[in-house]
């Protein structure tokens, strides 16, 4: 159903001529199914492209767009930088609201360590500007091109520098929101006109309700401006790079030091984690799976394969028991004395926990340090096949680390071995760090091949099996990637949170104006009713071959065949 002439006119009057398009090529460029959020299905172009695209320049224009949509019965889905495929529409009568023209950094408040930003400010831009003021920002796994606003308001945003830069669920301060009903609401301190410094108040404080932990993936209104936490950056105002594109490294600032530390068991890693966190010496503390370091230290797949097949991988990229149980740590100090102190602490922790330091070449040191500070090379996890998925995302106590690592190995199981359906990478593929310097965040990321039905099927199977494992075992922490119908399937593991999510959705999206692809739908899918019975059968060992075939089938025909078409 194309946009009617009247709808087009109303949208143009909201955002100005030239900022609305219903041209098929323009619309199709917003219908890409790949990368982060890409569905494991054969087609790269979505079956349902948006029927129009609008480019509002400010909050009032966003409101105008929403009101025009409500008037004409059009659904809408906003996006900031539009990373991956999380921003694609699912309904046949939906428009895409591209917030590209809303790209202002309103303020960097050096003394109060915060910024006020719009949706299209990228993490790379914000970091560059913040560093000029001695501050730094959190950068989620999507890397430098993602939108901190989108991550903080509508996704589960979490990144490798979380030791000192928190996570975006909690970096969100005051916020401005255009609801699905077209109201402009200011939440937290911005709601009382007292600034953007707090998400809870003074002013209306329902930040948690409209984002929860997973976020609404752009399917509950449009967030247009936020207050956003920044953190102290003791390094230079501009990072000095070295090396050659695309293998750029950073000249490690004076009094900074990079360590790559290894242990012989996850139990020792856990013990060391507590000591490091308590000591507060780490600026960045992260465990990156060895093969992902292999990706970072190579510019192409061929380069990586050559290193691997010729046995020339550096220690940091080796997935053997000597090298895979690691933390990489960047310490930052303001003086030589502080740097010496931190060095002594690190050495003491290593001695206490049977750890050792693995030396890196100077080139690799610079490259890894740059990676840790900017997150620049994280998207390389997508390089092997351009399709990745995740089975685990866990926020928990560090005491769970050994168990989670084991569960990750079990989950990836045969599929990560030769002849399997996933990339032969590191055996559990976990990226881990202490979020906010305290609790464990760990998530695995593995490559699959979108062109092979069995590989796509394995991803579907993995998602269900893993969620079932979390729910059944009840000891693997909080699953934060239960998006869309998965949230309904496994709601009981999170105290039936979907009941409340659905109430929120129904209350704020009274006109059912927004797509519901990743966030919860207004009504539960029909299959949810039968899920308790199905799951008892699906995960039986004897049923596994049938389960695998079923998932491959749905990977071919598409999940909509299972879930029913969206209205």
């Amino acid at each position, binding site marked *: 159903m194309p946009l009617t002439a009247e709808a087009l006119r109303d949208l143009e009057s909201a955002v100005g001529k030239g900022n609305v*398009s219903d*041209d*098929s*090529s*323009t619309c*199709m*460029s917003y219908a*890409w199914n*790949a*990368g*982060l959020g890409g569905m494991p299905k054969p087609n790269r*172009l979505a079956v349902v*492209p948006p029927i129009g695209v609008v480019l509002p320049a400010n909050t009032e224009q966003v409101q105008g767009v929403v009101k025009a949509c409500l008037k004409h019965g059009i659904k809408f889905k906003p996006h900031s*930088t*539009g990373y*991956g495929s999380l921003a694609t529409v699912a309904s046949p009568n939906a428009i895409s609201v*591209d917030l*590209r023209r809303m790209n202002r*950094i309103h303020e960097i408040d050096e003394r109060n360590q915060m910024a006020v930003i719009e949706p299209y*400010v990228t993490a*790379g*831009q914000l970091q*560059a500007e913040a560093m000029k003021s001695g501050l730094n920002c959190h950068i989620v796994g999507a*890397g*430098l*091109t993602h939108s901190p606003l989108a991550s903080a308001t509508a996704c589960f945003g979490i990144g490798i520098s979380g030791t000192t830069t928190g996570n975006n669920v909690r970096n969100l301060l005051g916020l401005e929101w255009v609801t699905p009903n077209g109201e402009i609401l200011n939440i937290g301190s911005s709601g009382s006109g007292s600034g953007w410094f707090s998400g809870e108040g003074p002013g209306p404080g329902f930040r948690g309700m409209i984002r929860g932990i997973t976020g609404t993936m752009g399917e509950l209104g449009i967030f247009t401006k936020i207050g956003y936490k920044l953190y102290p950056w003791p390094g230079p105002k*501009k*990072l000095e*790079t070295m090396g*050659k*594109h*695309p293998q*750029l490294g950073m000249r490690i600032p004076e009094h900074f030091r990079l360590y790559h530390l290894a242990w012989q068991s996850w139990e020792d890693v856990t013990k060391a984690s507590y000591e490091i966190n308590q000591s507060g010496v780490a600026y960045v503390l992260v465990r990156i799976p060895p093969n992902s370091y292999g990706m970072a230290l190579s*510019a*192409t*797949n*061929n*380069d990586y*394969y*050559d290193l691997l097949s010729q046995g020339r991988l550096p220690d940091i990229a080796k997935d053997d028991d000597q090298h895979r149980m690691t933390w990489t740590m960047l310490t930052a100090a303001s003086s030589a004395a502080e740097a010496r102190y931190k060095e002594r602490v690190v050495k003491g922790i290593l001695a206490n926990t049977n750890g050792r330091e693995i030396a890196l070449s100077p080139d690799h040191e610079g490259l890894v340090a740059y990676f840790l500070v*900017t997150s620049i090379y994280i*998207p*390389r996890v997508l*390089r*092997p*096949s*351009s*399709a990745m998925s995740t089975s685990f995302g866990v926020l928990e106590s560090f005491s769970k680390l050994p168990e989670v690592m084991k569960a990750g190995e079990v989950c990836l199981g045969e599929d*990560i071995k030769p002849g*399997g*359906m*996933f*990339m*032969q*990478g590191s055996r559990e593929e976990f990226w881990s760090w202490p979020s906010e310097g305290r609790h464990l965040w760990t998530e695995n990321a593995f*490559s699959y*091949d979108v*062109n*092979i039905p069995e*590989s796509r099927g394995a991803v579907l199977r993995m998602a269900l099996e893993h969620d079932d494992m979390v729910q059944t075992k009840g000891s693997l922490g909080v699953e934060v990637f239960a998006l869309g119908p998965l949230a309904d399937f496994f709601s009981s593991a999170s105290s039936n949170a979907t009941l409340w999510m659905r109430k929120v959705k129904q209350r704020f999206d009274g006109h059912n104006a927004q797509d519901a692809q990743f966030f919860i739908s207004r009504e539960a899918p029909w299959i949810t009713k039968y899920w308790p019975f199905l799951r008892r059968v699906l995960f039986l060992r004897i049923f596994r071959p049938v389960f695998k075939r079923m998932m491959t089938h749905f990977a071919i025909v598409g999940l909509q065949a299972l879930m029913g078409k969206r209205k």
Partner: protein
Amino acid sequence: MSLETRKRYIERCPRCSQCKWLPAPKSQRFASVCPSIQYGNFHSYSAGGKGFTAYAMLENRIGYSAEMLRSVFACTMCGACDTSCKTNFGDNIEPLDTLYELRARVVRDGKSLPAHVELIDNLRRVGNPFGKPSQERARWAEGLNLKDITKQRADVFLHIGCTPAYDEAEWRSLQFCAELLKNAKVDFGVAGNAEQSSGGLAFDLGFQEDARRLAEASAKLVVASGAKTLVTCCAESYAAFKNGFPRLGVSLGGLRVLHITEYLDELIRDGRLKPRSSANALVTYHDPCKLGRLSETYTPWQGEWRRVLNVMYIAVPPRPVLYGTEGNYDAPRRLLQSIAGVEVVEMERSREYSYCCGAGGGAKEAYPDFAEKTAGDRLTEAEATGASVMVTACATCQRHLSAVANKQGSKLRVKGLLEMLCEAVV
């Protein structure tokens, strides 16, 4: 190559938008690398978006429209997207190759823009895009008594290029350059009116057959001269010789190819030329795309993508990957620094990350507002350095940036590198 062969590359795009941005920006203001998306705003203007357009064409999901053509051609083909994309994805996607093939497909489908058809008509008729008589190409050299390399042998084939040859403002620099070479006792010759476009513009516009015909004619002229070294004063031709000709299967027979800046740099370093003082000036250098990232030597590859480690794809045999880093960046800077009293200050986007001037790829002719906005953005960046002079080594960039600087009332003076040297070298 064809657009069909690009499909597997487009499929590798994860829509990360890195093609729009510097790999590691130094500020918000100058974080963009893509003039096209800065102008058009819709995702279809980005390299990734253009890839999706190409993909949708191949899947018969879209047809031609004015807006589609605008998103394809309001683009300078500067290649910054390609460099940025390779930050994380190596040779997986290579968006610039897709843009070349998308334009070629548009041409084959007879949907070229009228402004581009006019340029091609001129190239076919008189061998230059301006429609000026081929007999006037060598007017700049009148009275200089230069060796005609089509009749006499010389060690160095001095190639001039269309813009320098027909732009009278460039003639003084060309004449001075010829004098310098004479003073340095270089045995060189020029082809005069026999020279014609090397086909770089035709290739960028998507007219690959015209590009091949022009490239073959240029190669024939150069090879027949027996010269050992080809030195060009034209950045566009430099890129064509090194990168475009191999794409078109045209060979220069192993001739050494240099840009005039590289050759003069060599002469200075060999002590055959000596710079003298010039007026004090704080200068910023604009890296022309054609002299920089687009001038890397292209090596054709034929092979297959093989699946290893269950799902990872590698090229068999391995293929050379162009990252933009091997362009001609140092020689122009060394030449500038060789002039006493000149201090060079870098813009945030320089070398392989340089921001385009807006004139290339037929953009200026088809969408002058786009070309002007892009030049304006680049001038703003140059002004932010505090420099009073912006120097470039491409006549097309210089002409365009200078015109926009005048129009927008910029205080910045835009100069050619040869012009700067002209005032400083004896």
